[in-house]
């Protein structure tokens, strides 16, 4: 504080003016959203996609959901045997798989807990709805998200490859 009053006030003016000039020359830090979009990172937890063929309706995701926002209904049915001549197998057929995104808190426990790799995260985020009831995605809608699921990212140097997920 050896110097008199002026410098601090002038420095502040300098910062704002500097930013003004930077915005003019280098462009703004913001993105004009509907016209240009930022791509979320690969791991971004945007929406959960369902690979229906892998789901065995084991209910693990339902039971581990902290919010109780996943609903599964299924029934058993007979499927043709794997090997010729074997007995017909009993498989679980998925009737209903709903995720209520109005309740979901995007913790990712269901995706992690799924033993059969039926659930995936997709970074897609543009699915807001004017009506809250439309946020209940059924299994066909969850299946559509599968197209947007990216490959898992490369890991940083020094990471140990894990067996699964």
């Amino acid at each position, binding site marked *: 504080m050896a110097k008199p009053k002026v410098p601090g006030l002038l420095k502040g003016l300098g910062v704002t003016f500097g930013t003004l000039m930077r915005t003019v020359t280098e462009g703004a830090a913001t993105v004009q959203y509907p016209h240009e979009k930022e791509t979320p990172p690969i791991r971004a937890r945007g929406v959960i996609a369902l690979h229906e063929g892998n789901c065995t*309706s084991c*209910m693990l995701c*339902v*039971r581990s*959901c902290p919010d*109780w926002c*996943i*609903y*599964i*209904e*299924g*029934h*058993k*049915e*007979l499927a043709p045997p794997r090997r010729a001549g074997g007995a017909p*197998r*009993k498989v*679980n057929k998925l009737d209903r798989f709903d995720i209520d995104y109005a309740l979901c808190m995007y913790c990712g426990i269901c995706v992690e807990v799924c033993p059969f790799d039926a659930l995936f995260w997709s970074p897609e985020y543009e699915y807001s709805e004017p009506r809250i009831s439309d946020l209940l995605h059924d299994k066909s809608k969850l299946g559509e998200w599968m197209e947007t699921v990216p490959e898992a990212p490369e890991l940083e140097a020094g990471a140990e490859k894990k067996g699964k997920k």
Partner: protein
Amino acid sequence: MGVFPLSPADTTEAPRDERRETELGAILGALGGNVADSLLKPNDDIWVRVTTESWRSSIETIRSLGYAYFCFLSAIDWMPSPFGKGENDPTQPAPERDNSIVQGYTGGATRFQLLVRLVMPGSTSGVNIKCDVPDDSMTVESLVPVFAGANWHERETWEMFGINFAGHPDLRHMYLPQDFEGFPLRKDFPLLARIVKPWPGIVDVEPLPGDENEEESEQS
């Protein structure tokens, strides 16, 4: 880099923690007959349970030993919840639950226990002090004269557990409406969100028509 102690069952030889031993020794010496029980977990923490009558004076004594930093005050309801995790099937009879009250470290005799943590400023030498709350009067001396910061913590504890603090200047509700009835953090206070809606995990995959008892017969 402290390695966390293994749980007591796995311990083959108890590791020593001389710093905490001297600290606990000093506390026990100063408190004298006011200590009901104490526990030292090496490289972890110290627990002391003091008698209800000496609650305020014990805290004062411990503070005078240098534990001048008031970390938190709360309570524990040792009764297991009669509602479980709210994952019961409402159509089935309620499952049997073990409702016996088992206190944690340093034991105790009552359902509710107060818990205070004091720390020596500038270090991590802390002590967890517990005290029984009499089941009938549910009243303990207030700590506000000792630590001004206990004010809000005691209000919260009173509101959530229904434990009265004699000598507290301003025992009002902290979070809830002033006319709220019930003590939400008591285990017998139901968590309504988990009761009004049935757990989606209750339902299971419908079996094939005609075979009910073959759940585990076919498993590839």
